[in-house]
């Protein structure tokens, strides 16, 4: 995207009317100089193979250098890959590069150009609670401690999306929304309907930025919504309930149920957002028990249902899904090619894909799309050790159509359309908590700690009433500091307020990193100190 800066300006007055010819000029640069030994060139510099061809090794410094225009430098840096190390390394080259690479407006253009934040890693349940693991190799590998959840690592993780993590603190019926990049934390009292007796609670957090040009992946200051659903409620087991919280209003809204299901259901896997509707696939309680039996019982009724939360229309519905797959208890709503939804069901080694078609009258039908033999995709192929070996869909990334499967304790990332897979790791626990985490990890989000550590505040919110409940204020003082630091005059103060070194060593205690919007010391004068 070149929308932000003025177009690169050509030299003036170089287009002439017909007939004008300039005088001759005798000097001319000689190209293709023989490769010279460069005494300052590090041995670690490899010959760059650029798209198949090879560039000549660099000439000695000060003979040839990049044209000195910031616009040009921005165009080059925009084309760096969105990996975590790209811009930090560029910012460490020299002052001019630092000024460009850390300019918030450049970063906005960078995210807009790339659109899709990289997958940094995933959260999974281990013996030490929920921990983050990186899927990237060095230098892009982010240390697990950087994205640790602190005290919340022992709570129930409901999901993560748009760079935020949603956690449910079970006995106290509290919801925590964390931003691992900035360290921001927001505590909410969940509606009383989700009291500790209510099992089968699913939730989702999503960015609620209204700006159409907003690109997810750095939604740190954007408003968010939290959705909580319980399809097997304590108060009424046959009536699913759903609430949506908005950080802008600070209020939970109870979503009316359009049509109650006839059976009791429970969920599988993570919600998927398509359009502005959140979807979960669910299975009847009896059906789930039957399908988990060994050997799996034959199911001859349509047992998969779709739970839909319409965030625009503010409604909850449970609709019919495709026929369940024989022997399968692992299913996942997916985004279909035509923009509607589908359902993937896994009965290893086969995965069935069904797609929903809605006609002009709003009537939906489910059509079988394809069956894929996962043995032809998973590489290296898993060693199935028995019928009780874990084979399930852990999660699904609707933006990229990527599945995360667990087969025989190993986690695979699968791009079904491209028929490609990648083995990620060995899954350390049978507890089904696995949430991929994507984010643009752009320069400036530091590991600095504030000298003042406040305990996280939780906010009691009322439901549906004209509450005096304020928007999430768990980090009120940080928010105020963040606002003030957005002005460039406060930038120097913010930068100098840092207390230096990041934490060292593992920390199981609570941490909270104060964050201000990182502003470079100056973007107007690259040479200043």
């Amino acid at each position: 995207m070149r929308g932000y800066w003025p177009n690169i300006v050509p030299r003036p007055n170089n287009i002439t009317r017909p007939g004008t010819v300039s005088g001759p000029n005798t000097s001319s640069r000689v190209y293709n100089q023989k490769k010279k030994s460069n005494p300052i060139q590090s041995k670690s510099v490899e010959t760059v193979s650029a798209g198949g061809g090879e560039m000549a090794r660099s000439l000695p410094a000060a003979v040839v250098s990049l044209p000195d225009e910031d616009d040009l430098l921005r165009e080059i840096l925009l084309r760096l890959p969105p990996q975590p190390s790209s811009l930090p390394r560029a910012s460490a080259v020299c002052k001019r590069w630092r000024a460009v690479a850390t300019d918030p407006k450049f970063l906005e253009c960078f995210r807009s150009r790339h659109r899709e934040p990289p997958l940094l890693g995933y959260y999974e349940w281990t013996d030490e609670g929920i921990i983050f693991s990186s899927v990237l190799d060095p230098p892009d590998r982010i240390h697990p401690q950087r994205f640790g959840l602190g005290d919340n690592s022992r709570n129930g993780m409901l999901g993560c999306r748009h760079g935020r993590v949603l956690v449910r603190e079970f006995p106290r019926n509290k919801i925590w929304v964390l931003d691992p990049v900035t360290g921001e934390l927001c505590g909410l009292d969940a509606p009383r309907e989700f009291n500790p007796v209510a099992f089968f609670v699913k939730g989702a957090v999503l960015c609620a930025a209204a700006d159409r040009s907003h690109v997810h992946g750095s939604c740190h200051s954007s408003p968010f919504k939290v959705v909580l659903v319980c399809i097997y409620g304590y108060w009424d087991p046959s009536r699913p309930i759903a609430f949506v919280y908005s950080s802008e209003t600070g209020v939970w809204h109870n979503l009316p149920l359009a049509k109650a299901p006839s059976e009791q259901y429970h969920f599988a896997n993570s919600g998927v957002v398509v359009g502005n509707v959140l979807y979960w696939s669910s299975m009847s309680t009896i059906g789930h028990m039957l399908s988990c039996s060994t050997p799996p019982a034959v199911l001859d009724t349509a047992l998969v249902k779709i739970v839909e939360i319409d965030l625009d229309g503010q409604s909850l519905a449970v609709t019919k899904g495709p026929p369940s797959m024989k022997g399968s208890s692992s299913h996942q709503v997916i985004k279909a090619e035509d923009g509607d939804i589908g359902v993937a069901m896994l009965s290893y080694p086969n995965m069935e894909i069904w797609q929903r078609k809605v006609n002009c009258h709003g009537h939906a039908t489910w059509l079988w799309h394809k069956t894929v033999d996962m043995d032809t995709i998973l590489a290296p192929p898993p060693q199935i050790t028995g019928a009780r070996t874990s084979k399930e869909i852990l999660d699904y990334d609707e933006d990229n159509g990527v599945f995360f499967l667990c087969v025989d304790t190993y986690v695979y990332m699968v791009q079904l359309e491209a028929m490609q897979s990648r083995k990620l790791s060995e899954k350390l626990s049978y507890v089904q908590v696995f949430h991929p985490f994507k984010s643009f990890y752009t320069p400036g989000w530091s590991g600095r700690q504030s000298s003042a550590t406040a305990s996280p505040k939780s906010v009691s919110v009322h439901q549906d009433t004209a509450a005096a409940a304020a928007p999430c204020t768990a980090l009120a003082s940080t928010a105020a500091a963040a606002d003030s630091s957005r002005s460039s005059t406060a930038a120097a103060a913010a930068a100098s307020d840092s207390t230096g070194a990041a934490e060292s060593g593992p920390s199981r205690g609570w941490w909270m990193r104060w964050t201000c919007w990182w502003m470079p010391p100056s973007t107007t004068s690259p040479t200043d100190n």
Partner: protein
Amino acid sequence: MAAAPSGSRTRMVTLISKGGRNFKMPEAVALVSSRSCREALDYIEYRGNNTMMIKLLDIDPKPVSMLVNFCNHMAAAATSAASDDAAQRMREWEERFLGDDVDQALLYDLLSAAISIQADGLIDLVCKRVAHMIKGKTPQEIRTILGIQDDLTPDQRDEIRTDNSWIDI
């Protein structure tokens, strides 16, 4: 693309490099790649010979000739149907275009020439090439490749290290 009026010669665009060497291409070809030419047509008048002259007097002949080569290729590609094969062929051509014989000096002069006539496609290609040269490289390696002097103060280096202490810079 502007069609030549019936009965007149094809309009040409002439780029004049350092040394007074002329490189010509049909106006229709230039219009595909050069934003300057497209904008100039709004106000330029042709009298006598049907030629638009563009002076690039401080750019050597070789990069100007490559620029004309690029414009010719883009104009030809624009007339053919888009397909996966066509995209693959374009990528292969781009690799050959900026191949082994293009050193940094030539690359930057080519970039200057592209900027002069606002050939956005070539600017994009060269910027991609430079980005490819530096991606995955450490700051010192980038400085070496591009001939950049390290002028960061020790405080700034410390701040960068602190800001990015969680990944390996």
